[in-house]
């Protein structure tokens, strides 16, 4: 072979090498996003320090120093005068109360069935890929509430006790939180949509009634609503007529959040171009099919973040029912603080931490699901 020849033929494949560490992978990302300049490096270091100083004590308290088992306060008392960690043993001991309130122990299976049915119907309904949506929705929105009502409150037919009556006064904990939140969420959305449509209606009476309703409920604090419904309302009712306190709270919460929902939905309706109405009308669609098929699907999709915002707000507002003597999850936890059996310095912290975790799980779940649905419903038609 001549040394000066330009002839060349490759005899073996050049290996594919990974990209230099400096441009790809974790190190590349960190370089680009965290340490791209001196200023950014300083900010990164400060950020890490702040995060560490917040998270480290939390982990120390909730996991490392935590007491996981024990029968009473002795287990959770601080050792050698130091700080004590979370007293999870106390949460474990009180767990049934946090979940069911003072619901009679021998009837708790009924609540469990309701929880189970709720999850079993909601999960497939929430998954777009599952079939039988219509049946599923009917079961969830019509059959389930009826079944749940009789399971939770009891059923007596003609003097024969099939399910012993359980007064709502002994309900509590997560049960009350979920009953109020789920009823409020499920009922306030359609009511809010109706109010939003009413407020945009051309018919003056409907419009006026909707405006008055929305502005009234938005103008008063929820605490006032709850207080009025449980304390004042009985004064106006005739002798002997009583509503269940939980029912009154449910109605108050639903109407209250429906007013907020109405304004969120109205925002969505206003964002729909006039051409969509005209396109639908020109095809001969009447008002309700047009709303149901064309306008609302687009409007509601636009305001998913706002709707879920209201849902989350409603879920957390359920804690206010404590003001009228009902014990939701937070109320139940607070009421357990008075028990001397578990009275330790860390009892309050542990209880509130537990409440925070439970609320966070539910609210974060709703938030993530809404983002999932937004992506799912995005049909690449942003104009």
């Amino acid at each position: 072979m001549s040394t000066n020849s330009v002839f060349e033929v490759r005899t073996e494949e050049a290996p594919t090498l990974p990209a230099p560490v400096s441009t790809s992978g974790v190190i590349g990302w960190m370089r680009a996003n965290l340490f791209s300049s001196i200023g950014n490096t300083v900010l990164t270091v400060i950020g890490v320090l702040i995060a560490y100083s917040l998270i480290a004590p939390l982990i120390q308290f909730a996991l490392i120093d935590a007491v996981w088992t024990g029968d009473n306060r002795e287990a959770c008392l601080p050792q050698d005068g130091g700080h004590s960690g979370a007293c999870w043993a106390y949460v474990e001991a009180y767990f049934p109360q946090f979940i069911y309130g003072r619901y009679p122990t021998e009837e708790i299976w009924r609540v469990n069935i309701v929880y189970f049915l709720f999850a079993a119907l909601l999960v497939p309904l929430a998954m777009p890929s599952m079939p039988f949506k219509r049946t599923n929705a009917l079961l969830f929105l019509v059959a389930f509430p009826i079944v749940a009502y009789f399971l939770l409150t009891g059923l007596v037919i003609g003097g024969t006790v099939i399910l012993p009556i359980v007064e709502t006064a002994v309900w509590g904990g997560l049960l009350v939180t979920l009953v109020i939140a789920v009823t409020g969420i499920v009922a306030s959305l359609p009511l809010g949509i109706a109010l939003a449509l009413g407020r945009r209606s051309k018919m003056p009476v409907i419009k006026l009634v909707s405006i008055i309703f929305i502005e009234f409920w938005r103008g008063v604090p929820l605490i006032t609503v709850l207080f009025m419904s449980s304390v004042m309302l009985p004064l106006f009712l005739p002798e002997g007529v009583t509503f269940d306190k939980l029912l009154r709270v449910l109605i108050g919460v639903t109407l209250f959040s429906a007013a907020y929902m109405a304004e969120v939905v109205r925002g969505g309706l206003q964002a729909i171009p006039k051409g969509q109405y005209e396109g639908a009308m020109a095809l001969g669609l009447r008002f309700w099919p047009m709303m149901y098929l064309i306008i609302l699907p687009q409007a509601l999709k636009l305001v998913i973040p706002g709707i879920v915002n209201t849902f989350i707000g409603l879920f957390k507002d359920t804690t206010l029912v404590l003001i009228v003597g009902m014990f939701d999850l937070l109320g139940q936890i607070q009421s357990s603080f008075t028990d001397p059996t578990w009275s330790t310095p860390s009892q309050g912290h542990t209880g509130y931490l537990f409440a925070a975790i439970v609320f966070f799980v539910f609210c974060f779940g709703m938030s993530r699901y809404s983002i999932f649905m937004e992506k799912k419903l995005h049909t690449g038609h942003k104009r």
Partner: protein
Amino acid sequence: MTENALRDDDLAADRSKMMISETDVAVEIKNMNKWYGDFHVLRDINLKVMRGERIVICGPSGSGKSTMIRCINRLEEHQAGNIIVDGNELTDDLKKIDEIRREVGMCFQHFNLFPHLTILENCTLAPIWVRKMPKKEAEEIAMHYLERVKIPEQALKYPGQLSGGQQQRVAIARSLCMNPKIMLFDEPTSALDPEMIKEVLDVMVGLAEEGMTMLCVTHEMGFARKVANRVIFMDAGQIVEQNEPEPFFTNPQHERTKLFLSQILHH
């Protein structure tokens, strides 16, 4: 011939196929007046459209031409005079309005497709919900018309994924799925890029050849010349001049028509 070339010859329609009824009136507008608040937008409009006629309406912006054809399917309400569509007079009677809207198709400048539905769903929606047609049958009809406007392969896409010209063709197919007797076009090519105008006009010419009664608000004078049997010029809310296309373009009578034509034809 490149597909996108916009030449008047390409739009040449076979006029011999276009039959116009002598006796059958499709739309009749008598002494119609309309106000927006105090503003008199339409003044004493009189117009008689026979079945099978193709009418092109032109005029400067704000002259009321869109408003006039939008009155025909009651997207706008007129305050005085009569509008009789296919034998039914337009009044406040919602049943009559529904009946008329079922028989009158409309295409808009901005297409107004439903962005959350696929092309096929856009086309089947009205037949299923207004005509109460079984879904399968509606889909067959929709596919038939999508083939006619030459985009059957887009049936499962969403409007946002289509070009403007394709969207307007879908909008035409969507109207045709209702098997309308009269078609209204409100500046159907004004929002389109030049290269897409022809594909839409081709579809409209095809419709005209099949004898569809059409009222088109458009500035496509080539289309007017080839397809229309009457051109109407509107200005300031009135019909100023109407004539057959040839004399209308070659020998306009009214000063305002002359000015308008000189502005759009020689620039």
